[in-house]
C-alpha cells in the first residue's frame, strides 16, 4: 500500500483507526463464507464525512473500498477479493431517533439489528425483519443484502422497512434518498435501488426505517407429519384459507434425522416433516386462529401437534429450530448453504427435485427454512477431502439452481450474490437485464472502486455490444 495513501487515511480517521499490520489484515479478510482475501489496509470510520473522504481518496488512487459491517454475510459481499481498503462501520452505532408518533427510526449502519429491536420494543414498537444473524449482524449489512428471516412471510423483508437513506456514493458524494414519510414519489426511487445492492453502488451511512406497533401476543405450535407432502399441502391450505402466520418454518426428514438426538421435543422415526407455525396479534384472536389452522391441516397426515402453553414452551419449540444449524455437522464436515426461493405452491416440487438430485449423486442434502414464502435453505453436506467431491458439488449446485429456475424461483432469497453465486447470475437473469444492471454500476462507479468483483463475474467485458 502506497505510504501516501496510508498517511492521508491517518489524517482522515486518526492513527488508531488505520492499520496495515498483518494481524489486522488477517482479522478483516473473511466472512461467513469462510473464504479469505487479505486487504491492504483496514480503516474504521466513525462519521459520514470520514466515509466520504476515504472514498474520495480511494478514487484518486483507484483503490478498491470494501464496506464491512459484522462480516457475517453468506455470499462474500464484504470480502476484499481485489485487496484495497476494508472500511469498517461497526463503530457507527448510534440510534439517532425513535419517533413514536410517526413510527420511524433513524440509525447509523453499525447498529446491531436485535439491539434496535430491543430498543423499539421497549416503546411498544416493532422492527420485523429477523435474519438468523440478527443478534450480531448490522443494519447497514441488512440493508446492503436486503436481509430476510422467518417473520418475513407475514411482515416482508428489509426493503419493505427502509424509508430513506443517506449514502456515500462511489465517487464520494453524500446523497439522500426517500425520507421520513411512507408516501414519497419525488424522483426515482433510489432507496430501493440501494437496498440489496451489496455495497457495490454506495455506502449507507444513515438509515430511516419504518416501524409498526408491536403485536401484543403470539402463539407457537409444532406439527409433526408423516410426509413432506402433508407438510407442503398444509402450507398451501393455510395460505389458501387467507391466514398468513408470522412464521411458517419447515424441517425435512434429513433435518429431523440430524436434530433427533438433541431435540427437546421427541421426534419419532416416522416423523418425516415438521412445521413450526407461529401466529401473532391480539391475544383474544390467537386461540381461534390456532384452532382454525388445526382444522385446516387435519387431513394431511399429522402425527402430533404441540401447542405452546406459554413463553417457556414456545422457547422449547424454537430450540428445535435453533438446533438445526449446529447439528448439521453430524452429517458431514463441509456445508454448502444455499437460500433458494420458489413460489410457495412449488415447495413440494422443489423438495422432490432436491431428493432426486441427492439420490443421483449420493450427496446428502438437508433442507429446512421458510416454507411460508417458499424460501428453502438447501444444505449440501459433503466431505471435501473425498476425491472429486468439489467437482460433484459444482454439478449438484448447477442442477439445484436449474431446478429452481424451472419452477420460476430465484437462486437467492436473502443472502445475495456476492462472489458465491456470481457464476449463476446468468441462469436467472437474461443478458440484457444483466447489462442494464452493469450500466447502472458504471454510471455510479466509473472507476469500479466500490466492492469490485461482486455480483457480476467479469467486469471488463460487461457492456453489451450495441
Amino acid at each position, binding site marked *: 500500500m502506497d505510504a501516501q495513501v496510508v498517511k492521508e487515511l491517518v489524517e482522515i480517521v486518526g492513527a488508531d483507526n488505520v492499520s496495515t*499490520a498483518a*494481524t489486522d489484515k*488477517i482479522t478483516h479478510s*473473511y466472512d461467513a463464507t469462510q473464504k479469505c482475501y487479505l486487504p491492504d489496509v483496514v480503516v*474504521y470510520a466513525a462519521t459520514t464525512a470520514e466515509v466520504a473522504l476515504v472514498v474520495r481518496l480511494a478514487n484518486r488512487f483507484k483503490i478498491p473500498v470494501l464496506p464491512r459491517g459484522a462480516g457475517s454475510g453468506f455470499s462474500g459481499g464484504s470480502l476484499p477479493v481485489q485487496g484495497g481498503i476494508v472500511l469498517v462501520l461497526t463503530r457507527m452505532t448510534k440510534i439517532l431517533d425513535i419517533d413514536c408518533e410517526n413510527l420511524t427510526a433513524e440509525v447509523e449502519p453499525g447498529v446491531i439489528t436485535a439491539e434496535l429491536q430491543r430498543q423499539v420494543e421497549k416503546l411498544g414498537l416493532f422492527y420485523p425483519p429477523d435474519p438468523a*444473524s440478527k443478534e*450480531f449482524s448490522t443494519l447497514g449489512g441488512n440493508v446492503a443484502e436486503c436481509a430476510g428471516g422467518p417473520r418475513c412471510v407475514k411482515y416482508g423483508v428489509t426493503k419493505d422497512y427502509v424509508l430513506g437513506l443517506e449514502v456515500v456514493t462511489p465517487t464520494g458524494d453524500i446523497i439522500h434518498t426517500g425520507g421520513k414519510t411512507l408516501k414519497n414519489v419525488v424522483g426515482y426511487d433510489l432507496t430501493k435501488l440501494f437496498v440489496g445492492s451489496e455495497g457495490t453502488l454506495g455506502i449507507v451511512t444513515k438509515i430511516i426505517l419504518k416501524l409498526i406497533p408491536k403485536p401484543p401476543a403470539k402463539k407457537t405450535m409444532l406439527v409433526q407429519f408423516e410426509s413432506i407432502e402433508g407438510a407442503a399441502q398444509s402450507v398451501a391450505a393455510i395460505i389458501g384459507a387467507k391466514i398468513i402466520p408470522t412464521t411458517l418454518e419447515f424441517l425435512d426428514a434429513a433435518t429431523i434425522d440430524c436434530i433427533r438426538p438433541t431435540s427437546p421435543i421427541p421426534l419419532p422415526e416416522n416423523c418425516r416433516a415438521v412445521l413450526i407455525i407461529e401466529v401473532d396479534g391480539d391475544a383474544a384472536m390467537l386461540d381461534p386462529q390456532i384452532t382454525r389452522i388445526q382444522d385446516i391441516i387435519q387431513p394431511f397426515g399429522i402425527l402430533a401437534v404441540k401447542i405452546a402453553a406459554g413463553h417457556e414452551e414456545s422457547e422449547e419449540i424454537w430450540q428445535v429450530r435453533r438446533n438445526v*444449524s449446529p447439528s448439521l455437522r453430524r452429517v458431514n464436515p463441509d456445508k454448502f448453504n444455499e437460500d433458494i426461493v420458489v413460489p410457495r405452491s412449488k415447495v413440494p416440487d422443489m423438495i422432490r427435485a432436491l431428493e432426486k438430485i441427492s439420490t443421483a449423486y449420493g450427496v446428502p442434502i438437508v433442507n429446512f427454512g421458510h416454507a411460508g414464502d417458499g424460501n428453502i435453505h438447501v444444505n449440501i453436506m459433503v466431505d471435501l477431502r473425498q476425491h472429486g467431491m468439489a467437482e460433484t458439488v459444482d454439478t449438484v449446485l448447477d442442477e439445484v439452481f436449474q431446478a429452481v429456475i424451472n419452477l420460476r424461483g430465484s437462486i437467492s432469497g436473502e443472502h445475495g450474490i456476492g462472489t458465491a453465486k456470481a457464476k449463476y447470475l446468468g441462469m436467472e437473469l437474461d443478458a440484457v437485464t444483466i447489462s442494464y444492471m452493469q450500466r447502472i454500476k458504471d454510471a455510479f462507479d466509473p472507476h469500479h472502486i466500490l466492492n469490485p468483483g461482486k455480483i457480476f463475474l467479469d467486469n471488463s467485458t460487461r457492456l453489451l455490444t450495441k
Partner: protein
Amino acid sequence: MSKNKNLQDFAKVIGECVKCGVCQAHCPTYLLSRKEGTVARGKIALASALLHGEADLEKRLQEDISMCLMCGSCMNKCPNNVPTHEIVGAMRRSITDNQGLSLVGKGVSTLLGSKVLMNGLSKGGALLSPLLLKKVPESSGLRLRFFSAPGMQDRTVPKIAFSNLFDRLPEFIKGQPDKPVVGFFAGCSITYAYPEIGEHMVAILNRLGFSVYLPRAQRCCGIPGLSSGNGWLVTELAEKNVAAFEGREVRHIVTACGSCNGGIGEHYRTMRGDFASFTAKVIDFSVFLRDTGLFEELAGMEKWPERARVTYHDPCHLKIQGITREPRALLKALPNVDFVEMADAATCCGLGGTFSVNHYRESKAIGAKKIPGLQESGASMIATACPGCIMQLQDSINHAGLQVRAVHLLELLAAALSPRRP
C-alpha cells in the same frame, strides 16, 4: 515439562470455527470495542494463521490476544463449541515461551509460586507493611488486585484479612463419624481476602455432618498463571494441588470460588497427564449442597418477615460448566431472601483474572454494563459464587453510586442457618 496443551494440540478445534460470527453477540470485549481482532472468530483466525506460519507474534497480535477475559461466553453460544478461551491460553503461553513473561505475568508468578509470600501478603496486607510491599513486585497481579496501583486509584478492593483462613481453622475439622470426609479447596481469594466465606463453608459442611479436610499444602488453582500465559506455573500448581489432597481419602473436593472450580476442575481436565481422578472429585458448593437435600430443608423453613431482595450474577467459570440452576435454586429456597432475576445476569463482570490489571479501563466499562440490569431488578444485594466477581461487581456498583452490596451466596446461607433470627 509443561503439561498444558500447545497451539498444535488445538489444530482440530481451530478448524471447526465456521466464521459465522455468532460469538460477536456474546464477547464482552468485542461488544465494547466492536473490533474484529477482539472477538473469538478473529482470535481463531489468528491462531490458524500462526499454526500455518502465515502470521508471527507481532505487537498487534499480542494486543488482540490480550483482549480476552477467558470467560468462555463465546464457546457456550458457538454452534461448534470451539473453546476459544483455551486456544487463547495456548497462544498466551506461546507468547510467553517466545519472549518471556510480561511484567504482570512475572508478578503473578513470583507471588503465586511462593507460599511464604502469599502468607506474608495476608498478614502484611492487613498492616500494609512497607516491608512486604518491597517483597511483592509492583507488577504483581494479586498486589494490583488488592492494593491501589497506578491507573487504578479508584478501584474498590477487599481488605486483606489479618488472619487468613489457615490461621483460623485447623487442617481437619471433625464431623459425624458416619459421614464422609469432604475436601475443601479454598483458593487465594477466600484464604487471604475473604476468609469468613471459607469459615461459612466449613461450618455449613460441618452442620450437615461432614468432616472437612483443608490441607495446608494446597496452593493457588493456577487461573492467574493461565491467564498470563505461564504454563510452567500452572503445571507446578496443578501437581502440588493434586499431591495436597492425597493426604486423606476424600470423595469430593468442594470449591466456593467459581474461578477455582474452573481452574482445578475444568482446566486440569484439559491438561496432558493423569488429572482425571482428581478433577472428578471437584464440585462446586451449590451442586454439592443441592445433592445433600439442604435446599428442601431451607424451603421448608418459615420465611423471614423482613427479606432482602437479592439477584444473582453468573460467574463465567460456573456458567460455562452449566452450573446456573443450582445457585438460583439455593436463592429461591432461602427463607431470608426474595430472589429476583436481573437482565444480563449471565454476562461477564469484566474481571477476567489478569485482564483487569492489563486493561482496567475496558474491565471497568464491561463491569458497568451489569449496572442497568441490576438497577432495574431493584435488588439490594447481588449474590454470586466467586470472590473475584464479588470484588469486581462491588467496584462497578461503587462507580455507579448504587446502594447495593455484592455478597457470596454462602453469606446469605450462613445467615439463614444462624440461630440469630430477626
